[in-house]
């Protein structure tokens, strides 16, 4: 899935007085992304291709158009990104990394394609699970992104996300991972990339998500974190990622999903946020941008739509706040 931005800009067309979600436009926008290979940006964003596919596919499912991308071609592409060590690269010829491996597992889960994956790759799930498990630091419990060892709570969350979807959590030391997440809690109630690093809503999502999967939300100072998260809402209804920063549609997801996991989503003004997200659409060519007037892209498109789903916008599929995937899919994989 291409990450080429544009061509449209958000909120510059004739937005009708009564705001609405332009479902069909967004579907066509996502479908069009892979037809733009005559643009240099398409190739410069190759190192995100597998993430992009997950973003596009998830948006389509939430929009109620799960079959809008060719299923077999997705599986072919996905398998062409797989390395012998069980990890996935962003695109063929790119090194294996946790982030793409998680995207690959999420795509397989969403397409209900684990069976076909096993047919193509013998013991496929076990191999992928082993790649992920081998990235855990046995001393600290945290995870690296690849064999070179950069550590970040994103990777830890990604590991628990993918392993739980495959039913393979027992391959790693969950208790140690939980300990590490707990050590990243800050004085303001939030979480950063590593112990002591500044609180950031994106990182809060990964830490709260990891603790939720591990069943250890009891470790979170829920009141303080909930208050900090609700402080992210600005007067125009949008949410920011850190104090004194600008609003951005993708935080509709990071902030709201965390609040949903803590059962505190009602602490922010959902109506105002809905309006803000809808203003970030391109009403003519589809897609959402970070804020009104900017270029649209698939990243902000999925997180805007997932945010609207959390806000119970009519007609959208229910999203799972822990996984950023359709709730029907996680129910199927997790059996709950």
């Amino acid at each position, binding site marked *: 899935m291409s990450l080429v931005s544009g061509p449209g800009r958000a909120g510059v067309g004739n937005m009708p007085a009564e705001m609405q979600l332009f479902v069909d436009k967004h579907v066509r926008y996502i479908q069009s992304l892979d037809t733009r290979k005559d*643009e240099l940006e398409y190739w410069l964003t190759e190192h*995100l291709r597998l993430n992009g596919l997950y973003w596009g596919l998830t948006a389509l499912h939430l929009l109620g158009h799960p079959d809008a991308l060719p299923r077999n071609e997705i599986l072919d592409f996905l398998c062409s990104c797989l390395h012998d060590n069980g990890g996935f690269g962003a695109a063929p010829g790119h090194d294996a990394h946790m982030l793409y491996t998680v995207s690959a597992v999420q795509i397989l889960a969403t397409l209900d394609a684990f069976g076909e994956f096993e047919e193509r790759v013998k013991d496929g799930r076990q191999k992928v699970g082993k790649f992920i498990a081998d990235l855990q630091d046995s001393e600290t419990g945290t995870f690296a*992104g690849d064999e070179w060892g950069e550590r970040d709570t994103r990777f830890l969350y990604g590991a628990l996300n993918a392993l739980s979807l495959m039913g393979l959590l027992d391959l790693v030391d969950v208790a140690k991972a939980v300990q590490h997440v707990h050590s990243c809690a800050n004085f303001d109630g939030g979480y950063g990339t590593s112990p002591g690093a500044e609180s950031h809503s994106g990182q809060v999502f990964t830490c709260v998500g990891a603790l939720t999967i591990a069943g250890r939300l009891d470790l979170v100072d829920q009141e303080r974190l909930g208050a900090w998260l609700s402080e992210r809402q600005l007067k125009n209804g949008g949410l920011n990622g850190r104090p004194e920063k600008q609003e951005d549609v993708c935080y509709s997801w990071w902030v709201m999903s965390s609040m949903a996991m803590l059962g505190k989503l009602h602490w922010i003004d959902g109506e105002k946020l809905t309006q803000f997200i809808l203003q970030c659409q391109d009403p003519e060519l589809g897609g959402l941008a970070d804020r009104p007037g900017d270029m649209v892209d698939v990243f902000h498109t999925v997180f805007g739509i997932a945010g609207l789903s959390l806000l119970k916008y009519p007609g959208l599929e229910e999203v799972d706040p822990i996984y950023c995937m359709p709730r029907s899919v996680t129910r199927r994989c997790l059996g709950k």
Partner: protein
Amino acid sequence: MSLQLIRSFIANIFLSPFAFLRIILLRLRKGFTYTSEYTMPPPKFYHDDEAWKDVEPLPQDDGGMHPLAAIAYTEEYSEAMGYLRAVMASNEFSERVLGLTEHIISMNPAHYTVWLYRAKTISELGKPLQDEIEWLNPTALKHLKNYQIWHHRQTIIDALGSPEGEAEFVSQMLEKDEKNYHVWSYRQWLVKRFDLFDNLEELQWTESMIDADVRNNSAWNHRYYLVIGGREGHAPSEEVTKREIEYTKEAIRKASQNQSPWNYLKGILRAAQLPKSTIKSFATEFADLEAPDDVYSSHALDLLADIYAEEENNKESAEKALDLLATRYDPIRANYWNYRKGLLSQSEVAA
């Protein structure tokens, strides 16, 4: 020196703001300044370069989805990548490979595999690490939000074993973007790796960053890390606590509706195990319930609500403060303030 010299690191599913994805998006938004930025030196090609005539570039394998689309690469980038694939396939580590990686990085610094191979090459050739840092400096300044560059730098400085010159470099970077998450994380790493917690200059520098922008939450976070957060749970001394409280009060007086110092103040009190009522009279300067039209800080009201709630027989004041927040001073979070009000009556029932 091992291959540990590098790691790649990447984009993110999760965190657009501090990932290079942002760089790409920004670049695209600016009408794709990429071209103007890098075509200043003319495009560099390898097919007619004597030094490369022994190498046959490897074509892109697009994985079968749309193989013909590979022709869409611009010629220069595409050719350079072809040569990179070829040298990687033959495990060549040489000066010309360093040049090639530099060329590709200048076109697309987010391509993590290129950084990886560059590190391997430096390691294999035993190149002086200081040279690599000097080469990195202008590259980092050009690509502020790139992950790879920071990681590359961290590993090299770690191997060098000295933070000399790094403080100046960090300051230079922050002049361009004072809240850059990578840069602050890197600064924290320097403090920890070279044990700069009690280095007076570090605290003074942090202060100068807060002076420059009292709303810079990253600078406040760094201060907390220096004073408390990085010190493995040791409570601050009485002297340090007093100093921090006074410092923060001054900062709040400059901008009373500023979340960062209020959060910081509460953090300091908690770490020193002091009750919130320690700063009751200070908070009242900004929010006096007797003058509900003249509230200068919702954060002060919030704090006072907590303080009143803990006092005996003062639930009414707490309720009044929360009402002011819900209806006048922070109505967008009315549900949250009303929830807090609900807790008041619950604790009454419990009592």
